[in-house]
């Protein structure tokens, strides 16, 4: 089959302009072993007030993508090779470092998997929040301190006045994550990026942090991008989902579309590979054979094809492009291309939705 199959590249669904839109982002890392194509043309956008989850396995480029949004890619070895990141109408990749500093923290807040990477061990927690406030707002130290204590109170740290004077090592893991959230929200950013915010926490503490994020989002109307590999967390938090594999977006849609009508075979397999509390035990899990591809030499065709039970000849030859198959639901898979005579039937079948 011809490699150059023309198709309509997707246009973002109509309606108001998204708060953030990433367009054809390409990021590589230049290592001794060669160029790692970490992000290979990623596009997704998030609407104001929405909570978007980015899911995928390690090395799929989900973290590198949001680090590019924050312009936190270490250069060298990393380099943003192409694409645009439009945040509130401006292209983040065209900003100077100085302009970027007023975006980071003030307009976009970020929390990390390991709260210790975001907290300074030599400063008390209150002062760290004050530092963030004073940097972006014209307030005096005393007002800033008051606000810092208020932020700690908002994230439900008990005894915030005393706790503000303590150092990160005096906090437990869950409290450090709360402190990070307080710091990230201190300047009321429009967008909060949470990179695996609960992965290092115990499940009862994870539950507390998720409650907190949901409540804050509702109260502050905040937009959230959460990166996680935990599909349970996604189900609880997200209303939109982006599924990534080997440096590309393979499917995106609303939470119900992705969970109940997954179209890409990878999404489908991913959903069925996790055991569920409400399911019968000791049945075989759907496993995906093999491992993700080597991104030193990205495959010519679809990166998932070698592991895909539905792979066709074309999948090894050329990569599929995103096709919008229903409102807000895009998938990059040849099964649904109009040149596949069975495309309509595949769509009718709707991937094979999870049995309920």
């Amino acid at each position, binding site marked *: 089959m011809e490699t150059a199959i023309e198709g309509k590249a997707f246009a973002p669904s109509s309606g108001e302009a998204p708060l953030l839109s990433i367009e054809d982002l390409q990021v590589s890392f230049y290592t001794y072993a060669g160029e790692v194509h970490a992000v290979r043309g990623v596009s997704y956008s998030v609407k104001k007030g929405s909570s978007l989850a980015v899911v995928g396995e390690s090395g799929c480029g989900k973290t590198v993508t949001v680090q590019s949004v924050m312009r936190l890619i270490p250069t060298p070895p990393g380099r943003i090779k192409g694409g645009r990141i439009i945040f509130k109408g401006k292209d983040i990749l065209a900003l100077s470092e100085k302009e970027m500093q007023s975006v980071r923290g003030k307009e976009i807040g970020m929390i990390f998997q390991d709260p210790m990477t975001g907290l300074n061990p030599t400063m008390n927690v209150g002062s760290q929040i004050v530092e963030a406030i004073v940097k972006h707002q014209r307030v005096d130290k005393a007002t800033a301190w008051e606000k810092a204590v208020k932020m700690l109170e908002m994230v439900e740290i008990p005894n915030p006045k005393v706790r503000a004077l303590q150092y990160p090592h005096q906090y437990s893991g869950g409290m450090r994550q709360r402190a990070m959230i307080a710091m990230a929200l201190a300047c009321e950013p429009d967008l909060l990026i949470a990179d695996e915010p609960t992965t290092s926490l115990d499940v009862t503490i994870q539950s507390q942090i998720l409650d907190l994020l949901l409540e804050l989002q509702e109260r502050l109307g905040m937009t959230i991008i959460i990166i996680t590999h935990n599909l349970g967390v996604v*189900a609880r938090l997200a209303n939109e989902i982006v599924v990534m594999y080997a440096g590309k977006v393979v499917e995106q849609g609303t939470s119900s579309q992705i*969970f109940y009508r997954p179209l890409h075979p990878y999404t489908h397999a991913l959903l069925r*590979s996790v055991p569920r509390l409400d399911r019968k035990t*000791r049945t075989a899990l759907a496993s995906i054979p093999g491992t993700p591809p080597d991104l030193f030499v990205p495959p010519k065709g679809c990166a998932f094809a070698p592991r895909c039970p539905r792979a066709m000849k074309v999948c090894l030859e050329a990569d599929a492009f995103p096709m919008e198959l229903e409102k807000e639901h895009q998938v990059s898979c040849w099964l649904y291309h109009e040149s596949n005579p069975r495309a309509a039937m595949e769509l009718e079948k709707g991937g094979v939705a999870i049995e309920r």
Partner: protein
Amino acid sequence: MSAELALEVKNLKKYFRLDRRRTLKAVDDVSFTVGKGEVLGIVGESGCGKTTVGRTIARLYTPTSGSIIFDGKDITSAKESELLWFRRKLQMIFQDPYASLDPRMTVSEIIGEPLDVHRLATGKERAERINHLLSIVGLSPEHASRFPHEFSGGQRQRIGIARALAVDPEFIIADEPISSLDVSIQAQIVNLLTRLQEERGLSFIFIAHDLSMVRHISHRVGVMYVGKMVEIAGSEEIYKHPLNPYTKALMSANPIPDPDIEKGRTRLTLPGEVPSPINPLPGCRFAGRCPQAMERCKHEDPELKEVEPGHWVSCFLY
């Protein structure tokens, strides 16, 4: 599953003395059994003592008190020289496939080492057994001459499993064997373990923090909290009728990957955090966070009791 017991743990305690005043009670009076061919899952949050239980049973630690009866023999205080038979029958699979394989050994040396220690095979037979073990875990003979760093996490875990199977054990303790792996790879390893367990009729202790995964592969599940076993029941039963308030909270905190169910769930979120196992307070360890705590819970320690056939719980509510 037969009624015959593979392992009986009675009042097991493992304390670590930190200094003159502080003792870490990692495992504090835990009793349970594992039947032959049965999979017991042990679940709990960090610091609950689940790993210490596994390691103490495998006699990587010497118990502080209590008894461990393996295959009818008391191995609680057996000397290392008397444990060779036991080490052949019980093997461990560890969490971190990066740390548990010697980076300077080839795969065939790693898998062959237990064969040498127990003098099970030499020469051509040894090489054949190594190849056979590799194929059982889904690797191929050409992997034998490679080093651990040449493999992905999932493949390393397969090497660790092949090594554990080398001596043809009857009992395996797997301590968080999949938590460092990606979701799709986790499913591969879990399916492999389940298949091996069934084919070989292995008895199994599967230790993990992920309740849905533990429940998935186990016949029975034990829930631990700060050194104590708070509930043990069949894996269907524990989901449908959890009794201990901590088990209920753990169940409730575990998100289900289904947005409609998730959004409709009433959730029991626990306040506070897991207390320290260092010099624990008297009374039930969970009393400080328990929504149903009574006066009695602060002073007395509940015992693990069988409240329904096969369903054990330690809680004064029952």
